[in-house]
C-alpha cells in the first residue's frame, strides 16, 4: 500500500484525538465521581440510577417521618406517666381517707388536693405539642376535654363538643413503604367520662365525709374505681410502648436501608476511583507514546537526505 505523509499525519491526528477523548472520559469520571454523565453512556445504569435515587429519597423521608412519630410518642408517654402518677396519688389519698381516723377537715383538704389533681389530669389530656392536641386523634386543633365549672362553681368537664368524646381517628405516619403506624394515644378508656366520674365520686364522698346517698360511691368504692382507672392508663401506656418498640425496630431497619440504598446507588453509578485513576494514567502513557512516535514519523522525508 502506498502511504503518504498526509495519510500518516491524518492517521496520527485521528489517533491522538481518540486518545484525548479517552482521557477526557476518565477525567470526567474522576471529577464528577460518576461512571456515566448521560443516559446513552449506559442506559441500564441511568435507569437504575433513577430508581435508586427515588429509593434513597424515600428512605430519607421515612426516617424524617419516624422523627415526627417519636416526637408524638415520647410526649404521649411522658403525659401518661404523669397521669398514672396523678391517679396513683388519688388512690393513695383514698386509701388514707378511708381510714376512719381522718377528721372532716382533713378530708376537705384531701378533697382540695384531689380537685387539683383532677385539673392536672385535664391539663395533661389537653397537652399540646407543636401546637397540636395530641390526645384527640386527628382533631389536633381541638382540646379533647373542656373544663367547665357548673352553676355551683363545681368543677365539671365536658368532652369534645359537649356530648362525649369526639370520634377519634388515628394519626397515621408512613414510616416505611406502605406501612402506616398510628402514633397517637386515643383518650378513650384513658381520659374519658369514667375517669372523671370516678374522681367526681371520690370528691363527692370526701365532701360528704363518706356519708353518701344511695347509689353514690363511697371512699372505699373510689379506691377500687381509681385503681381501675389507673390500670386503664397503664394499659394504654403499655400499648403505646409496644408501638414505640415497633417504630424503633423499623427505624433501625430504615437506617440500614439508607446505607444499603446509598451504597447501591454509588456502586451503580459511582466511579471506582482506583480503576479510573489507573485508566487515566495508562491512557496518559499511551498518549505520550503516541505523541513521541508521531513526532518521529512525520519528521523525515527524502528531502532531508538529498544533498
Amino acid at each position: 500500500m502506498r502511504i503518504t505523509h498526509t495519510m500518516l499525519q491524518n492517521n496520527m491526528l485521528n489517533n491522538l484525538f481518540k486518545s484525548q477523548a479517552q482521557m477526557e472520559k476518565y477525567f470526567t469520571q474522576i471529577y464528577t465521581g460518576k461512571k456515566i454523565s448521560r443516559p446513552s453512556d449506559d442506559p441500564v445504569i441511568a435507569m437504575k440510577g433513577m430508581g435508586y435515587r427515588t429509593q434513597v429519597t424515600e428512605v430519607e423521608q421515612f426516617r424524617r417521618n419516624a422523627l415526627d412519630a417519636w416526637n408524638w410518642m415520647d410526649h404521649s408517654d411522658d403525659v401518661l406517666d404523669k397521669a398514672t402518677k396523678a391517679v396513683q396519688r388519688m388512690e393513695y389519698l383514698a386509701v388514707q381517707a378511708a381510714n376512719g381516723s381522718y377528721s372532716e377537715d382533713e378530708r376537705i383538704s384531701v378533697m382540695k388536693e384531689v380537685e387539683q389533681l383532677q385539673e392536672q389530669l385535664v391539663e395533661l389530656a389537653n397537652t399540646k405539642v407543636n401546637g397540636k392536641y395530641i390526645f384527640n386523634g386527628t382533631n389536633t386543633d381541638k382540646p379533647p376535654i373542656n373544663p367547665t365549672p357548673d352553676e355551683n362553681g363545681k368543677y365539671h368537664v365536658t368532652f369534645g363538643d359537649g356530648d362525649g368524646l369526639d370520634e377519634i381517628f388515628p394519626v397515621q405516619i408512613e414510616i416505611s413503604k406502605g406501612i402506616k403506624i398510628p402514633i397517637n394515644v386515643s383518650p378513650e378508656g384513658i381520659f374519658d367520662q369514667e375517669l372523671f366520674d370516678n374522681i367526681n365520686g371520690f370528691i363527692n364522698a370526701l365532701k360528704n365525709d363518706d356519708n353518701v346517698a344511695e347509689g353514690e360511691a363511697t371512699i372505699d368504692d373510689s379506691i377500687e374505681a381509681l385503681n381501675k382507672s389507673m390500670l386503664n392508663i397503664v394499659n394504654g401506656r403499655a400499648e403505646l410502648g409496644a408501638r414505640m418498640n415497633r417504630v424503633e425496630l423499623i427505624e433501625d431497619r430504615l437506617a440500614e436501608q439508607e446505607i444499603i440504598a446509598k451504597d447501591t446507588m454509588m456502586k451503580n453509578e459511582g466511579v471506582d476511583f482506583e480503576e479510573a485513576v489507573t485508566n487515566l494514567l495508562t491512557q496518559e502513557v499511551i498518549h505520550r507514546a503516541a505523541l513521541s512516535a508521531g513526532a518521529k514519523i512525520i519528521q523525515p522525508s527524502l528531502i532531508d537526505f538529498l544533498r
Partner: protein
Amino acid sequence: MSTFQGLELARKALFAQQGALYTTGHNIANVNTYGYSRQRVNFETTTPFPNPSRGMPNRAGQMGTGVEIGTIQRLRDQFLDFQFRTENSTLGYWEKKQEAVTRMEQVLNEPSENGLAKTMDRFWQSLQDLADNPDNSGARSVVAHRGLALAETFNHLSKSMQSIQSDLKDQIDVSVKDMNSLLKQINELNKQIQKVEPHGMLANDLYDERDRLIDKLSDYMNIKVHRTPSSESSLEIADGLVSIEILDSRGNSLSPDGVFLIDARSGKDLDSAVNEISVQPGANEKGPITSVSIAGQELENLDILKSDGSFSALIESYGYEENGVVKGLYPEMLAELDKMAREFANEFNRVHHGGKHLEEDNDGNGSKFFVNKANQEDNDYKNSTDRDESITAENITINIDILENENLIAAGDPDKGSQNGDNAHALADVFDQSLDGLGNTSARKFYASLIGDLGVKGQEARKMKESTEIIQAQIDFSRMSVSAVSLDEEISNLIKFQHAYNAAARNMTAIDEMIDRIINQLGLVGR
C-alpha cells in the same frame, strides 16, 4: 531520414520531460489541497519512421522518433469513491442522530440532582411532610411551591425541546439550500468539463473539484453517480458528465426510473439538468415535514427517509407526518411528556378532589391542583371534578388559588377528623400508582423508561457513528493511498525527470556536434 531528426527528437524529449517536471511541481504544490488527486504524465512514443506507405524508403525496420505527452491523468479509484460516499451518508445519518439525542439528553439532564425525577421526588417528600403535619402552614406552602416547581420543570423541558426542534427545522432549511447549491455547482462543473473534454484533454482539476462537491453531497443522502461521455471525441479515460441519483440505504433506486438530482444522462440541455430539492413546510415555517419534492415532484411516502444521511436524520429528529401520524424523535418525546404530565395531573387532581381543605367557605372538597394555564381564571373549571384532557407538559401549572392560599390544599380525608393528613398520604401514593393512561405503569416508572429508551437510542447512535467513522476512515485511507501526493515519490520523480531532461539535452548536444561536423568540418581537404 532527415538530417535534423535527431534535434527534433531531443527537443520532444526536452518538452516531454519538462512537462513531467511541471506536473510534478503541480503535485508538490497541491500536496495539502483537500480532495486533490495526484496527476501522472503518460508518456507515449511518437509515430515511428517510416510509416508504411507507397513511397516509403526502403530500409530495415522502423525507427523511433521520440516521446510526447499522451495524456495527463489523475490517479483515482472510482470504486473507492463509491464506497466512501455510501459510508459517508451512513456516517452523516448517525452523526446527526447522535447530536439530536445528545441535545435531548442534555435538556432532560438525568440522572442528576436537578432533573424531572428529582423534582418529583422532592414534591413527594413535601407531601409526606404535609401528611405528618397537616396543620402546619409551612408544610403546606412547601407542597404548593414544589408542585409549582414540578409544573415549571415540565414547562421548561417542553419549551427547551421545542426550541431545539425549531433549531432542527432551521438546519433542515439550511441543508436544503446547501444541497441545491451543491447541485448547481456540480452542474456548472459538468458544463465546464463538457467544454474541455471534446478536445481530447482531461479536466483533472475540475474532476477533483466535482468529486469534492459530490463527497459533500453524499453526507446528506445516499447517492449514486452515473457517468455519461461528454462527447464522441472525448477520450476513453475521461470522466465525462455525472448524473446523481438518490438511492435508498440498501443501494436500490427509489423508483423504477430512478430519482435524479442531476440528470445529465442525455449529455444535452445541461442548463435544465438540476432537479432542486424542496421540503414542505418550507423555510421558516413550523409543523412536521409532510413531503419532500425533487423538482416540484413529491416523493412518495417520504421516500427520502429511506436514504440514510444527515438530511433524513434531521427530518427524523425534527418530526414528520406519515399517514396523518406525527413521528420523529422530538415530537414523540414531547408527546410522551405531555401524556405523563396529563395523566399524572389528572390522577393527582382526582385524589385532591376527594380530600378536605382547611377553608370553611367551601363544601370541603379540593379543587384542581394542577391546571391548564389557559384556564387559570375559570373558577368553574378549577372546581369541576372532570378530567382535563387539555393539560400538556407545556401548559401545566398549579392552581393559582392554592399557591396564594395554601390552606386550600386538600390534605385531609373528609371523614377522619379535622386535622388529619390521610389525603396527603393518598396524594403521595399517586406517584407510584399504576395509571391506565400510561400503560399501567406509575408516573415515576414511565419517566424512567422514557429515559432508558432515550439512552438506548443514544447508545445505538453513538456506537453506529463510531463504527461507521472507522469504516469511513479506512476507505478514505485506501482512497488516499491511491490519490494522495507523496512528497518522497514526487521528489524522486523530480530527480528522475531532471535526469531525463539533462540526458535529452546531452543528446541534443551530441546531435549538434554531429551536424557541426558535417557542415563546418567536412570538405576541407587541401585547404
